[in-house]
């Protein structure tokens, strides 16, 4: 009985360390694996472990969104591309050690050490106040997104649109579009006239 009680009291801590460890292992594997498919699967491990950490923080909506958006869509698209390329072991090549990688590993280790409780100073006292039951619910998140953080939220969508346009431009680089009149082109022509004449034979 007492074992049960201590276990149930300690369970969130145990789960936290378990899934925090898993997410770290997954993240390191993403960096270290040569095979892109293994790296992508390790990324899924990280994404799902972080979703569990969100659940432990009782942010259920964020956890579900994390799973739907990252595990359900973004990593699947990565994997889609990896499968389309289907690289052979020769194309992937063997592991190489460079000075830059060594430096990056050193910086990562340094940051990790600096975050240790003893180095960074005493941790901030955690308030014992119970959290609001509506914390992390869809309603609260929605209010924040469409109220306080409306501008950054909308700007993010423009960023994503720009990324999408860039993707299309990169993919269709070889195809020259039909020349249509637009005022932007006309102004650009006027400004860049001298440049263009130089280039043309």
């Amino acid at each position: 009985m007492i074992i049960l009680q201590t276990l149930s009291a300690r369970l969130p801590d145990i789960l936290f360390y378990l899934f925090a460890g898993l997410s770290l292992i997954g993240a390191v594997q993403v960096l270290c694996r040569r095979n892109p498919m293994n790296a992508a699967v390790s990324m899924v491990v990280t994404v799902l472990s972080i979703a569990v950490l969100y659940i432990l923080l009782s942010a259920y909506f964020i956890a579900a969104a994390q799973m739907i958006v990252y595990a359900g869509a973004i990593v699947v698209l990565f994997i889609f591309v990896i499968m389309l390329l289907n690289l052979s072991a020769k194309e992937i090549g063997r592991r190489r050690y460079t000075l830059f990688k060594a430096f990056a590993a050193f910086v990562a280790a340094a940051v990790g050490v600096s975050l240790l409780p003893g180095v960074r100073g005493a941790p901030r006292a955690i308030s014992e106040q119970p959290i609001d039951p509506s914390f992390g619910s869809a309603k609260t998140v929605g209010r924040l997104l469409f109220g306080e953080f409306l501008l950054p939220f909308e700007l993010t969508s423009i960023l994503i649109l720009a990324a999408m346009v860039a993707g299309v431009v990169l993919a269709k680089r070889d195809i020259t579009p039909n020349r249509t009149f637009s005022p932007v082109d006309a102004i650009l022509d006027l400004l860049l006239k001298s440049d263009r004449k130089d280039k043309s034979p």
Partner: protein
Amino acid sequence: MEGGVGIESHLFMDLILDLLPILVKMLVGFFVVLTTTAYLTLAERKFSAYMQDRIGPNRVGPFGLLQPLADGVKFIFKEDVVPNHVHKVFYIAAPALMLVPALLGYVVIPFGDSIELFGRTITLQIADVDIGILYILAIGGLSVYGLFMAGWASNNKYSLLGGLRASAQMVSYELTLGLSVVGALLVYGTANLRQIVLHQTEYWTLFGSIQVPHWGIFLQPLGFVLFLISAFAESNRLPFDLPEAENELVGGYHTEYGSMKFAMFFMGEYTGMITISALTVTFFFGGWHIPWIEHAGLTHNVVAALGVLAFLAKTACFLFLFIWVRWTLPRFRYDQLMSLSWKGVFPAALLNVFGTALCLYVLRRPM
């Protein structure tokens, strides 16, 4: 000392009494879903036989009723071959990654109202989660990893093509599946599946006396059609079973699989069908609610028990629809499937969300 022991054992009894209903619900749910999965394969074969003027399996047991058992025994005792050219870890993990999400999905679906036993109220739902529908979408999104992993690990061009098709199809139709329920979520104002069913137990009164239940199908007809299309695609059933199109890809992603591993893919597909059918009933057909039963004057527990039966019957209707469509419609071409998703269902779902939001704004604005 004795008092301490007494209190402790009392607490222990309370703990047992709290845990017992949950354990029973989990075990019964698991058992019912797996049994239904097994008998769904028999139903599929029987109905296809009737539709093609054949008899179907009738050798094992009366009317072939023991056929799923015989199939299971055969799957288990078949030699478990792992081909030499596969990526071992992914090859073995893939069937599990397909089956486990399928078995996790149904836990949030309410299969009945609550019953009162020995002074305790037991809700007939394994887990009453506030983000119910999001949970199902999140878990459903994970089953794609089983498909692509099987396709990739098999190291075989047919499997790879099957896996590729599966990932593209799942990503496209997950989006439309999610978007097609947004309209319904706007109407109900909650993502909790139990609250959604309770919302549908109310009535509109027409012509003074006729009562029409508040079912989602009347509120969201377009949303229902889009949801159903996406559900067929998401569960890889005909007319959208491109990932395993036999006459193009041998068996698609599961070409290299045999024995129990193949059976796990099979079970994953059928369990997914059960979950999605139950979800359709919950969202658009009033879940466990039997219309007009409030006027019959039955006790609460009897109504709840009848409700469970009603829920099972409604779900069975949709399972039959899945089988019916499979043996009636031909398969889509791959480009048709993709253009249906991105140029047909997706804009229509956006339109549905926009229209619903507009209607709700007009109807609910303060006068």
